[in-house]
């Protein structure tokens, strides 16, 4: 639209877009919008968090783990009983709630510092706080009272219980790091004895999720 000036000549309007510019603008905006909105499809690359199995009533009784060449290697998946741990220093790699690897062992209660054992037993999460390999008890180092990780020589002292902090700020008790690269103590798993079976106490389950 043009306006006639007083002298009759055509005056340029202040803001005029011709058809070419209009099309260019609209198409560029459309392209940018499409690209941006398609970028949001990348959200689909994030893992599906909802698809995991619902944790309803899960059996808290510990089950023996799959390690070969151990005293419990004939019974993987069966329930852990108190009577199996008949002497100090006997321990086993176990599984708690089908997904949390742990180590349970009989300890000399008089040597235990700053923690109490349950009927002489104590349990720790077995995933190494360094890079998540599974720690073992006396398997590779039969004469040492340590939880030991094969991957990078991390060692934890089950008799020396200390307070530590997870990256997300949760405080917890665990076996102190005495050698190697692990940054944090191995968390204690509180246990109870039910009908002679050893079961974990399911509180603060989020504490054991540090390996993803």
């Amino acid at each position: 639209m043009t306006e006639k000036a007083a002298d009759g000549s055509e005056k340029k309007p202040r803001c005029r877009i011709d058809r070419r510019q209009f099309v260019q603008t609209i198409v560029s905006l459309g392209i940018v919008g499409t690209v941006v909105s398609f970028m949001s499809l990348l959200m689909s690359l994030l893992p599906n968090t909802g698809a995991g199995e619902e944790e309803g009533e899960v059996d808290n009784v510990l089950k023996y783990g799959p390690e070969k060449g151990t005293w419990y290697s004939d019974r993987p998946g069966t329930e852990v009983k108190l009577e199996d741990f008949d002497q100090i220093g006997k321990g086993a790699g176990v599984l708690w709630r089908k997904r949390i690897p742990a180590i349970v062992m009989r300890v000399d209660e008089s040597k235990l510092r700053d923690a109490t054992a349950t009927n002489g037993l104590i349990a720790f999460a077995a995933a190494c706080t360094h890079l998540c390999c599974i720690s073992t008890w006396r398997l590779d180092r039969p004469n040492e009272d340590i939880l030991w990780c094969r991957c990078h020589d991390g060692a934890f002292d089950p008799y020396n219980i200390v307070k530590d902090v997870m990256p997300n700020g949760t405080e917890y008790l665990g076996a102190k790091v005495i050698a190697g690269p692990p940054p944090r103590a191995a968390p204690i798993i509180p246990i109870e004895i039910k009908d002679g079976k050893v079961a974990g106490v399911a509180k603060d389950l989020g504490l054991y999720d540090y390996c993803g």
Partner: protein
Amino acid sequence: MKKLYEWFDGRFNISPLIAEAQRSVNFALPSTITRQNRSKIFWLGYPYYYAGSIVAFLAILQGITGLLLAFHYVPSAVGDPGTPTQAYTSVQNIMKFIPLGALIRGIHQWGANLLVAALAIHAFWAFFRSPYRVGREISWLLGAVSLGLALAYSFSGYLLPWDQLGYWAATISVQIMRSIPALGDLIAQILLGGTSLSAATLARMYFYHVSLLPVVALVLVGAHIVLVVLQGVSEPEEVWKTEKTGQKPGQGQAGPLFGPFIPHQIIPVLILSLITLGIVLLLGAYAVQMPGDPANKFLTPQFIAPEWYFLWAYGLLKWVGWLYEIAHFVPPAMVFGVDLLSAKVVGILVAATMFLVLVLMPVIDRGDEVRVLRRPLKTTIGVWAIGLLSTLTLYALNEILSSILSIPIGTMNVVLGSIVIVAPLAAAVPVYALLRRHAAKATTQEA
């Protein structure tokens, strides 16, 4: 044949393209070896110079064998930990029942190892020869990225059989990735579909290995090779000895120094490719590695180690930890909100810095001199880096060595740890002294 060509040319007008391709291929490459050093038994001394062509040959071989394996492999890791998944059984199937399956997998396995080896030689050769100086920065960049690509290939491929070794090697890598400050978890979730390995991870790895990486590799490596053809090979040092020709190096022009790719260059390429093929076939037929036990996320196997070309990184991690231990240094849990000084983050930072330096070489290292013996500092750094990588590799084997030699692990660590510090320096210092003298002498002679 001619008729067929004419039929094609009539429709698609390809003859100008072919003429252009012939022209660049025939004139772009230096024929120093054929003209100046005709008497040399060149293919004894030049495998280094042709390492790139071995990489290309092996890449094609990997493509063919990989394609054949893909017909039988099933990328599914659904199943209870410790039981054979479909991925695992399908690899067993290939090894036991598919006609020639074991040979094909053997070639693929050894081809991958030799490819990385050839690529390492190619990369170090290029590092010493400074080819990026004369307008080949983009080739260098593409090459450096391709190096990362090869490692991504092998990382994803190693996991596919879903056996204990692959599973735990990948677990450690994933956890290291997670410790990248601030972004670690997000990267792990996007790349691997979670912060720990699962069936979703295998699906993604398989997609990368057979679909995404091949496309990226074709584009990047293709561009790398096209650039070599367009710009010419950065010629070997012998060119400098014949200064009478008065030509500037690396300009790719036709002249007495340059000869046709066919037949002069193609012959050593073919000879080396056939030798490589022979080696791969022998190793693939007689030394193929069966997958270990099925992956079990609740059981870390006795000895775990990454593949040999990642051992230096594994060793670096262990070595930093050992240094901390003997220095009685406990890294602070948090620096700026991340565990910046923990051995694993230090390891990541060192490795990332090394890669960054490699990528940025064209920017860091400027000037005209490319002769290896006239670059004391750079050559020394290269020698030191090779020394460091090999001694760190040795350090990664500390447990295995200590059990073989029955030396206590503590003593072994002290011995190997000191070697990591001393040996690279012991190699680098004399090299530097010698080269300084050589360079000074050469300069006075020229003056």
